[in-house]
């Protein structure tokens, strides 16, 4: 088994800028068979109650495995309260869903199937429809999601030493990103997320966010930092889709978020000039690269 896993890890090509290390639990090592099966299941509409939608309906490859709609839409047109996130590079994740209620992909992948607001299909019925054990369904979907990778963006090529990969404006944006604007305080590392939870004031107190999982007051209305990979592909932005453009996002953070008792201590007024705001937007557009999936 160890030899088999070694070979398989080399089969999944890693785009430039991402780690070669692809974390997977001991109980669910990556295999070609599981990845292939997981891909079929990801696009299989039998996994929704009325057979109208698959995982890919909200995590559309055309949109960086994310959604172009403001809020997630489930079977029968049920409107969710949050956006469907992009799921590129989730192999590197350590918390899943906007509120982090799942800590592994194995824990995460079946929840949307049974969620009444999403695919609304009981797991017993789901495994019956596809003729698989629940563990097989879970492990295959998790394995496939681990192969959905985005990298080799201009940003990556610049960090690898290609000084021409970013424009002068984007290079200025990168300096602001790590410096004055403080974006890198949360959007950190190759996947541009700290996998932690922050209250920016977006959405107000109506959505408990992380608090619904931890019941800690300091987690009230805190949401997970999303990866910025392919961010330009999927407006509108934030967990509730309330900001229409990247310019709106920068403007929001420049003003120091939305004041509330739990506002994250890292969110503060930035006093960015118009040119600085434009440079940050330009940098965000340089985070779109090459998306690959499957074996």
């Amino acid at each position, binding site marked *: 088994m*160890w030899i088999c896993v070694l070979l398989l890890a080399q089969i999944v090509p890693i785009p430039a800028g991402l780690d070669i290390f692809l974390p997977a639990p001991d109980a669910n090592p990556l295999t070609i068979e599981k990845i292939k099966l997981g891909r079929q299941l990801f696009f299989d509409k039998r996994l929704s109650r009325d057979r109208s939608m698959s995982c890919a309906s909200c995590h559309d490859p055309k949109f960086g495995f994310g959604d172009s709609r403001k809020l997630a839409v489930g079977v029968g047109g049920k409107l969710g309260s949050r956006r469907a996130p992009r799921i590129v590079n989730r192999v590197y994740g350590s918390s899943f869903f906007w509120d982090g209620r799942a800590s592994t992909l194995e824990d995460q992948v079946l929840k949307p199937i049974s969620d009444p607001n999403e695919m609304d299909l009981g797991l017993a019925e789901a495994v019956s429809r596809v003729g698989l054990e629940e563990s097989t369904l879970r492990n295959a979907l998790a394995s496939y999601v681990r192969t959905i990778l985005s990298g080799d963006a201009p940003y990556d090529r610049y960090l690898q*030493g290609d000084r021409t990969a970013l424009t002068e404006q984007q290079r200025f944006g990168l300096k602001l990103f790590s410096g004055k604007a403080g974006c890198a305080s949360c959007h*950190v590392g*190759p996947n541009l997320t700290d996998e932690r939870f922050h209250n920016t004031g977006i959405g107000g107190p109506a959505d408990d966010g992380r608090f619904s999982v931890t019941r800690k007051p300091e987690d009230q209305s805190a949401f997970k930092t999303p990866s910025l990979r392919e961010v330009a592909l999927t407006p509108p932005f934030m967990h509730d889709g309330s900001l229409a453009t990247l310019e709106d996002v920068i403007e929001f953070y420049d003003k120091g978020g939305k004041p509330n008792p739990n506002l994250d201590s890292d969110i503060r007024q930035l006093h960015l000039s118009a040119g600085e705001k434009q440079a940050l937007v330009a940098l965000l557009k340089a985070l779109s690269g090459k998306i690959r999936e499957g074996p």
Partner: protein
Amino acid sequence: MLVAWSYLCSAADHHSVTLHGGPSHDGRYLSFVDGATGELAIRETATGLSRNITTKPAGSKEFAYFSSISRDSRKVAYAWFNDEGFYDLRVVDIDGSNRRVLYRNEQAGFVQPCAWAPDGKQILTLFFRKDNISQIALVPVDGGPPKILRSLHWVYPKRMDMSPDGRFIVYDSFAATDAGERTIFLLAVDGAKETKLVDKPGNHLFPLWTPDGRSVVFISNQDVMSVRIEDGRVLGEPKLLLRDPGRILPMGITSDGNYYYGVRSGEVDVFVTDFVNPAARAKRLTLRFPGRNSSPAWAPDGKSLAYLSRRGTENFGQESRTIIIRTFAPDEERELPIKLAHIERVRWAPDARSILVSGSDNKGRGGLYSVDLQTGSLRPLVVEAGASFRGFEGVWSADGKSLFHIHGDSGLRLGDKVLFQAQGLRNLVAAPDDRSLAFCEGDDIVIVPMDGRVTRRVPMANVNELEWGSSLIAGTGSDLWEIPKDGPPRKLAAPANRQTGMSLHPDGARIAITAGRISSEVKVLKLSLK
């Protein structure tokens, strides 16, 4: 497993030996940086003779840093601070010939070669990027882009090493999110698997493979330990090899089992003494933490004093420090429990209710923070990702309304407003009359009113600190100088072992100084490999 230890060399044997290299696999050589010149050097262990194997241009500010000798003892990989102001990864033959740049990328940040692959085709290298990400990378010796195996947020592994069969890497990192303590991880070179080697409470770091590939030797709290490994899995419990060897920096293990490590010895402490005759009546300040203290700062009322006290036994990189508040009536000291990754220096706020701290937080952001003296709560004042871990130098105006700081490479600022634009400013102080600031620029002490216009320049080289009480005081090496309002600097009495870090008492008669000596030695511990 321990048979004996022996002494190899010290700073006294060779001028300014640094501990940032290591032994060759066959034990014939030890690489190090000649601290006096910044050149990479090789010491032949049999003869004790040393020679430089790099040559930099005259007047250059370039220098060598970490190094690693190839397993066949023919080449040395080393970090080189280049003429553009960042670090290259370079390779040179052991005789000093064939020097070449292997990887030059400003965005890679700091580079630290740690080990050669067994076939000599790749160098295990640590990158530390400007965005505070460290990356475990394999750099091909024959060119080509590095392979990034693993990225780590806001942590710099103290050491990593590759197994003799080339299949695994061991490194230390934080044991968990928000954990201050480290543990040892084992990462498969193909990226397929990572496991925690030591899963016990404590601080575990500096892992090195034994030459037979069957054990990893590491530091656990104050002790040297080892753990057996087979096919990437731990066998049994870690075993004690050597108890508390002091402030240790492991350097490498040779093929015959000699474990090379550097030890830092000596004491540095804070003393309170007479300003006019500091060596005569110096009194050690601390009540409970002798030998590990620095950076004193008198409170505005002169009734208490803050200083930094080192914690832990690590002998590399950022020291773990805490803030101590010493009062004299009653005679007490208490530790401020604050969560910062590094504390460089402290200064009192004019209202004496808080302390201004230069340093960096656990997200790798450097800057200035305010610490409430009653609650210990921390408030960022000027903090940025990408700033030095030492933070910014800052001073309050005497009325407590203005915070001046030196902002990285962009000059003296009041808030966002740039008052004095220049690179490399340092040693910022404010006059007690709240009218002037002083700082160093190159080989000048610059005195400006609070608006930043230069009123006076005093030529003085190698100033390592300024202090402004009844007069402006400058430190150069162990010497102290008074800078009068007019006329040339006047040399003051100072202990020969004075270190950077002083504070004048508001009464003008007393001074708190830092003094002591720290030296480094390289020692060898013989490991039994059976």
